[in-house]
C-alpha cells in the first residue's frame, strides 16, 4: 500500500553517513543504529495502525514519517502535536516562516520555499501527502502541483520586477545577500538586466530626469568597477593571506586576533607616514640645509642610540629649516638677485611641519574612533541577556580550524565549556559564609596592594634613575651611557608582569576571562605610568638642562632608543619565554605540553610600541617608518615562534570582544596620552633656539599665529580665516558651547538606549504571547481537520467495520 514510500522518505531524512567506512567515529555508529531503530519503530507502528484504523494517532507516522519520530523524541511541556497534511500545507505558507528583512528577501524566501516544495514533490511522493487511502491523497497531490507552480511564477516575476527597480550597485548588493543558490541568482540577474530599455522608454516622457538617471547609472557602474579593481589590487598586496590562514587553522580565532591587530597597526602607521613623507620629509630632503661644521663618522652604535651620524639627517626635528623654502633659480634674468617668485612656489616649512603633524594626528584619531565604534557596534547589543548555552552550542565551533589536532583541541575545549556550564546548574552553590567573603576580599585587597606597590617601586626607580642621568656629568656626551635609561625601563617592563602573574596565582578568580582582564589592567597601569614619568622627564626636566642645545633632537633620540630596546627585549622574551621554556619543559620536566601563547601580554607590547611612535612623531618624523619595519619583523618572528613552540590557549577568549578591547585600549590610554603630550609640547613648551623649524618662536603654535597675522596683512579677501582663528579657536566660549552640546547629545543617546531596552522587554513578552496564541490556533485547526477526517473515514468505513470500533475520541483539546 503506502509502505514503499516509508523507505524512500525516511532514509534520507536521517543523516546517514556515506563515509562511515572512511572515518569510524563513535558518533557515526550510533547514527546508523538510530536510523534503523527509527525504521523499525515506524514499521511496527504502521503495522499497528493498519490493524486498528481508528486508533488515536498519538505518535502517528501516517502524516509525518520521520518528523513524527523527531517530535516523539521531544518532550516539551505542551508536547508538539502531530499534524495532518492539510494543516501542514497551511503551516508551510504561514508568513512567520517567510519573514525577511527586506521586500526582496521576503520574495526570495517565498520563492525558495515554493521551489523547494515543488522539487521535493516532483522527485518522490511525500509521505505527508500520502494519506491513509491512496485515492484522495493522490488527487490532493495533483492539485498541489498546480497552485504551487503558479505561486512560484508569481513570486519570481515579483522578484524580478523588484530587482529591476534597483540601481546596479543596489541590485548586486541585494543579489549577494539573498539566500538563494548561485544558479538561481544568475538567472534572476539575467532576467532583471535585459529590459532596461523598457524602463528608460517608460521614463522617456520626462526628458531631463532620464538623462540624470542614465548618468547616475553609468557613474555608479564606473565607481563599482573602480572599486573592484582597487579591491583586487589590494588583494594582491595582501602578502599574509596564506600565513594568516595557517595560523587560524592551527590555533583558532583568538590567537589570530593578535596577528590581525598587528596588521591593523601596520595600516595605522602607513596612514600616519604618508602625509609626513609627502609634506615634510620629502620636501626637506629635496632642499637640504647647509651641512654643519663637523659630521661624525658612522659607527655601528648609531643603530642603537640614534645619535651620532643620524643626528644630522632627516630623521630628526633638528634637521628641518625654519625658513620658507623656494626653488633656487638657475640663472638670474638680468644678473641681479633672483626674484623670490621665480622658480616655483615657496614652501613655508614651519607651517607645513605643524599642520602636517596636526592633520596626520587628526586623521589617525578619526580612523581610530571609527574603527572602535564599529567594533563596539558589532560586539555589544542593546538588551542582550546572556544566552550562554545557545551561544556555546551554535557559535563556538571555529570553522577556520583545519588541522586534526587543532580540531581535537576545539572539541575538548567545547566539551569542557559545556561541562562547566552544566556544573553551575547541577551543583547547588551553598550560601557563602561571611567569613569566607571577608577572607576573599582581604586576599584580593592584599594582592592589588602588592601589585600597586610594585608599580610604585618601578615608577620611583625610573624617576630616580632619570634624575641620576641628568645629574651625572657627561652622560649626554658618551653615546653608550645613553642606553642606560631605556635599558632600565625595558627590564622593568619585562620583569614586573612575571611578578604580577605570580601574585595573581594567589587570587584564584572564578572566571578566567576576569583573570586576563585584571592582568591586562595591571600591565597597562605599569606601562602608562612609566611613560608618564618619562614624558615629565623630557618635557619638564630635559628642556631645562639642555637649554642651549637641541632638546627636541634629544627627545627624538630617546624615543628611538626606547623603540629599539623594546624590540630587542621582545625578541629576547620570545626566545626565552617560548623557545627555551619549551625545550626545558620537554627535556627536563618531561612534559609534552608546550607553553601557551600569551595573547594579552603580546598585545600590550604592541600597544606600548605604538604609543612610543605616536609620542615621537613630532620630534622624529620618520619614526612611523621604523615602526613599520619593526612590525614587519615582529610578524615573522612571532609567527615562527608560535608555530614551533606554542599551543593555543586552553581557555579561548571571545575573539570579537578581544578586538574591541584591543582597539579601545589603543584609543584611550595610548592615543589620548600621545595626543595630550603633543598638545602640551606644541602649546606650552619653548622650542630650542638653535635647531628645528620653530627656532625663533616662543611656542610651536606661534607659527600658525604668525601665518594668520600674515594673512590679515595680505588683504580683505582672506579675512574670514583670521576671523575664524580669532573668534573660534582663540576664544574659549565656542569650546565650552561645543562641549555642552556634546554632553547633551550623549545624555539624550543614553536615554534613548534605555527606552529601547524597555521596548525590547515588552516585545519579548509580546512574542511569547503570540507564540501561545499560534499554538492554540494550530491545535484548534488540527482538531477541526481531525474531526472532518474522522467523520469522512467513519463514513467510508461504516460499511466495512463493525460499529463497535467507532469510538468517539472527542475533543482532545
Amino acid at each position, binding site marked *: 500500500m503506502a509502505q514503499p514510500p516509508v523507505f524512500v522518505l525516511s532514509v534520507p531524512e536521517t543523516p546517514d553517513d556515506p563515509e562511515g567506512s572512511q572515518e569510524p567515529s563513535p558518533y557515526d555508529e550510533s547514527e546508523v543504529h538510530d536510523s534503523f531503530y527509527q525504521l523499525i519503530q515506524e514499521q511496527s507502528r504502521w503495522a499497528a495502525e493498519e490493524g486498528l484504523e481508528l486508533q488515536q494517532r498519538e505518535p502517528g507516522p501516517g502524516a509525518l514519517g520521520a518528523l513524527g519520530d523527531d517530535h516523539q*523524541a521531544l518532550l*516539551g511541556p505542551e508536547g*508538539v502535536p502531530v499534524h495532518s497534511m492539510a494543516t501542514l500545507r497551511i503551516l508551510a505558507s504561514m508568513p512567520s516562516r517567510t519573514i525577511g528583512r527586506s521586500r526582496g528577501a521576503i520574495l526570495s524566501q517565498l520563492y525558495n520555499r515554493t521551489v523547494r516544495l515543488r522539487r521535493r514533490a516532483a522527485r518522490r511522493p511525500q509521505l505527508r501527502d500520502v494519506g491513509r487511502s491512496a485515492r484522495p491523497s493522490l488527487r490532493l497531490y495533483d492539485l498541489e502541483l498546480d497552485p504551487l507552480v503558479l505561486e512560484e511564477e508569481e513570486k519570481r516575476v515579483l522578484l524580478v520586477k523588484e530587482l529591476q527597480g534597483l540601481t546596479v550597485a543596489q541590485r548586486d548588493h541585494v543579489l549577494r545577500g539573498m539566500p538563494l543558490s548561485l544558479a538561481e541568482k544568475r538567472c534572476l540577474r539575467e532576467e532583471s538586466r535585459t529590459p532596461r530599455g523598457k524602463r528608460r522608454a517608460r521614463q522617456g516622457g520626462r526628458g531631463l530626469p532620464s538623462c540624470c538617471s542614465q548618468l547616475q547609472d553609468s557613474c555608479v557602474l564606473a565607481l563599482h568597477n573602480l572599486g573592484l579593481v582597487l579591491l583586487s589590487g589590494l588583494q594582491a598586496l595582501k602578502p599574509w593571506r596564506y600565513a594568516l590562514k595557517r595560523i587560524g587553522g592551527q590555533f583558532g580565532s583568538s590567537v589570530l586576533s593578535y596577528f590581525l591587530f598587528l596588521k591593523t597597526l601596520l595600516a595605522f602607521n602607513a596612514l600616519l607616514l604618508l602625509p609626513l613623507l609627502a609634506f615634510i620629509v620629502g620636501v626637506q630632503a629635496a632642499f637640504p640645509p647647509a651641512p654643519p661644521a663637523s659630521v661624525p663618522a658612522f659607527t655601528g652604535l648609531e643603530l642603537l642610540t640614534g645619535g651620532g651620524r643620524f643626528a644630522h639627517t632627516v630623521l630628526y626635528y633638528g634637521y628641518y629649516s625654519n625658513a620658507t623654502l623656494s626653488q633656487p633659480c638657475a640663472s638670474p634674468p638680468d644678473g641681479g638677485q633672483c626674484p623670490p617668485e621665480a622658480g616655483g612656489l615657496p614652501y613655508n616649512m614651519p607651517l607645513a611641519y605643524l599642520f602636517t603633524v596636526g592633520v596626520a594626528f587628526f586623521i589617525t584619531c578619526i580612523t581610530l574612533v571609527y574603527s572602535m565604534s564599529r567594533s563596539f557596534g558589532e560586539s555589544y547589543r542593546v538588551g542582550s541577556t546572556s544566552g550562554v548555552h545557545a551561544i556555546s552550542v551554535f557559535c563556538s565551533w571555529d570553522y577556520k580550524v583545519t588541522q586534526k589536532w587543532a580540531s581535537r583541541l576545539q572539541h575538548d575545549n567545547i566539551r569542557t565549556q559545556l561541562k562547566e556550564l552544566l556544573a553551575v546548574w547541577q551543583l547547588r552553590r551553598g550560601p557563602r559564609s561571611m567569613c569566607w567573603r571577608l577572607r576573599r576580599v582581604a586576599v584580593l585587597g592584599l594582592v592589588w596592594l602588592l601589585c600597586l606597590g610594585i608599580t610604585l617601586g618601578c615608577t620611583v626607580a625610573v624617576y630616580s634613575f632619570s634624575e641620576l642621568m641628568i645629574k651625572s656629568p657627561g652622560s649626554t656626551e658618551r653615546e653608550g651611557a645613553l642606553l642606560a635609561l631605556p635599558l632600565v625601563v625595558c627590564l622593568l617592563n619585562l620583569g614586573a608582569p612575571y611578578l604580577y602573574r605570580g601574585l595573581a596565582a594567589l587570587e584564584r578568580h572564578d572566571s578566567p576571562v576576569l583573570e586576563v582582564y585584571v592582568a591586562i589592567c595591571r600591565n597597562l597601569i605599569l606601562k602608562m605610568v612609566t611613560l608618564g614619568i618619562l614624558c615629565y622627564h623630557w618635557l619638564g626636566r630635559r628642556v631645562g638642562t639642555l637649554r642651549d642645545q637641541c632638546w627636541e633632537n634629544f627627545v627624538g633620540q630617546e624615543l628611538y632608543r626606547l623603540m629599539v630596546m623594546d624590540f630587542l627585549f621582545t625578541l629576547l622574551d620570545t626566545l626565552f619565554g617560548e623557545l627555551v621554556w619549551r625545550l626545558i619543559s620537554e627535556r627536563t620536566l618531561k612534559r609534552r605540553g608546550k607553553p601557551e601563547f600569551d595573547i594579552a601580554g603580546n598585545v600590550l607590547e604592541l600597544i606600548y610600541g605604538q604609543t612610543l611612535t605616536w609620542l615621537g612623531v613630532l620630534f622624529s618624523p620618520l619614526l612611523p617608518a621604523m615602526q613599520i619595519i619593526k612590525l614587519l619583523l615582529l610578524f615573522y618572528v612571532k609567527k615562527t615562534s608560535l608555530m614551533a613552540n606554542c599551543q593555543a590557549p586552553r581557555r579561548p577568549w571571545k575573539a570579537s570582544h578581544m578586538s574591541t578591547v584591543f582597539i579601545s585600549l589603543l584609543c584611550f590610554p595610548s592615543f589620548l596620552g600621545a595626543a595630550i603630550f603633543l598638545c602640551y609640547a606644541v602649546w606650552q613648551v619653548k622650542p630650542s633656539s638653535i635647531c628645528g623649524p620653530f627656532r625663533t618662536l616662543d611656542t610651536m603654535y606661534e607659527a600658525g599665529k604668525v601665518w594668520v597675522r600674515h594673512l590679515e596683512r595680505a588683504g580683505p579677501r582672506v579675512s574670514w580665516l583670521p576671523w575664524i582663528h580669532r573668534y573660534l579657536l582663540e576664544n574659549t566660549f565656542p569650546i565650552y558651547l561645543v562641549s555642552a552640546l556634546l554632553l547633551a547629545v550623549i545624555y539624550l543617546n543614553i536615554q534613548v538606549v534605555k527606552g529601547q531596552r524597555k521596548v525590547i522587554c515588552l516585545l519579548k513578552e509580546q512574542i511569547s504571547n503570540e*507564540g501561545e496564541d*499560534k*499554538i492554540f490556533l494550530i491545535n484548534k485547526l488540527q482538531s477541526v481537520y481531525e474531526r472532518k477526517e474522522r467523520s469522512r473515514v467513519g463514513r467510508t468505513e461504516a460499511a466495512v467495520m463493525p460499529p463497535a470500533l467507532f469510538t468517539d475520541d472527542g475533543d482532545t483539546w
Partner: protein
Amino acid sequence: MGNKHTVFTHEQLEAYQDCTFFTRKEIMRLYYRYQDLAPQLVPLDYTSCPDVKVPYELIGTMPELKDNPFRQRIAQVFSEDGDGHMTLDNFLDMFSVMSEMAPRDLKAYYAFKIYDFNNDDYICAWDLEQTVTKLTRGELNAEEVSLVCEKVLDEADGDHDGRLSLEDFQNMILRAPDFLSTFHIRI
C-alpha cells in the same frame, strides 16, 4: 595555470562576480581548487556550462572541511539535491557564504539550515542533540546532552513552541558577536 579567458566567458565571470562576494581572481582560484578535487571529472572549459558534480566523498577531503564535524551538513545544504554532491555553482556559493564579506543575516540563514538536521525549517530538540553530540564527539553522556538542549531552548525559544524558528535563531545570533568570526572559512 591557464588563461582565465579559456575557462569562463567574460559574461560568466561577470555574473559570478556580481552574485558572489569574490573577485575574478578569487573565482579563478576557487575554480582551480574545485578542479583539483576531481581532475578527471571537472572539465577545463566551462563556457558551455557543463553539468558536472563532484561527489561528496571528494568534497569532504578538502583540508578546509575534513576536520569539521558539520562538513556533511554543509555539503548537503549547499548542494543542489541535498545529497552533498556539488556543482561548481554550489561550490562557489558555499565559499562565498562562508567568506568574511557575507553579511550576518545570510550566514545566520545558512547556519540555521546546517543545524536543521531533519530539514523541517525548525531546529527541534533532536536537531540540537545531534549538534551537541557532533560538537563534543559523543563525549557527553545522554543526560548532559539533553540538559544542554533544554537550556538552549529556554534561552533562545522566543515563542515557546519547543523549537527554534529562523527568527529565534537570528535573534540569538544577534547576541553573539563571535558568530561572524567563527562561521568563516578562509580559502
